């Protein structure tokens, strides 16, 4: 169960992780507990993105270059995912209107990347974090769409099987890419290291105990 707590943002973990672990040791763990913790992690990430921080928590330890590079990289993944989605769904559409859509998608990618870079130089941390988090959650959707569409094209299942597979794939993609996205953003070292060895946020015990 400890791995789910790694999906929470670092400031949150520094503030609450130790006491949550102590509580979980006494608590009977069920599937509801896991679902609830996953939902709590999602909520904490969103809250962190939009400015609500845990009390007494230190500021995020993400360095600005890591956040910006992560935002740009995952923004690219998002748009590429959507583009592949369109191409795989409607191969004949890469002409005429389809081509226009594709070009618009690529323009959207450039605008998003430019916005991330601009925010790093000229805006406050709130906008930077919002953009980066937006890219992260967008990446989850884009990658999920890509994998799901690829499966639809390379397998032929009946309606029920297709539905179950689709829902299952979406759920799996949400969790796995969410974890990978968190790792990319929360890793205190370089983004390259983070993407090569997908590791989750590690908050130094020294800092956590200092909170107590």
């Amino acid at each position, binding site marked *: 169960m400890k791995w789910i707590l790694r999906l929470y943002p670092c400031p*949150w973990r520094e503030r*609450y992780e*130790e*006491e*949550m*672990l*102590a*509580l*979980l040791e*006494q*608590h009977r763990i069920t599937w*509801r*507990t896991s679902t*609830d*913790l*996953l*939902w*709590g*992690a999602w*909520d*904490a990430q969103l*809250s962190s993105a939009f400015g*609500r*921080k*845990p*009390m*007494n928590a230190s500021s995020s330890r993400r360095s600005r270059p890591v956040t910006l590079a992560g935002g740009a990289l995952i923004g690219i993944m998002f748009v590429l995912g959507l583009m592949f989605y369109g191409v795989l769904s409607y191969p004949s559409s890469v002409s005429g209107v389809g081509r226009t859509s594709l070009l618009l998608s690529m323009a959207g990618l450039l605008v998003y990347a430019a916005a991330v870079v601009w925010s790093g130089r000229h805006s406050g941390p709130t906008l930077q974090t919002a953009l980066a988090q937006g890219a992260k959650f967008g990446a989850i959707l884009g990658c999920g769409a890509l994998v799901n569409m690829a499966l639809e094209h390379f397998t032929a299942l009946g309606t029920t099987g297709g539905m179950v597979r689709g829902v299952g794939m979406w759920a799996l993609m949400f969790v796995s890419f969410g974890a990978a996205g968190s790792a990319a953003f929360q890793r205190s070292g370089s983004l390259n290291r983070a993407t090569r060895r997908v590791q989750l946020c590690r908050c130094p015990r020294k800092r956590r105990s200092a909170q*107590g």
Partner: protein
Amino acid sequence: MQKDLSEWGRYSDPGLLILSSLANGPKHGYAMMEDIFTFSGTRLEPGTLYGALSRLEQRGWIEALPNEARRRPYGITPDGRQALRGHLQTMQRIVTVALDRLANA
């Protein structure tokens, strides 16, 4: 920042339950869960509990007390008592009206 518990969405009910649990003295997370289950029959899970605790603490309605081993007790603040009282009075009005209407239906 929401001024009233009713604006907290899915954390509204847990917030009310937590404040009610802390009204008779400080408790740590597990003790709160057990107490809430005893008086309300609601079994809060840890993710929901800490989501609500974070909001209550941010609002200044509860405060963290010094650690006991790895467990951290929380206590209700004067602002928290006032917020709880206000919310319960609203609920009491609703209950009174609803019961009255049921009786006269």
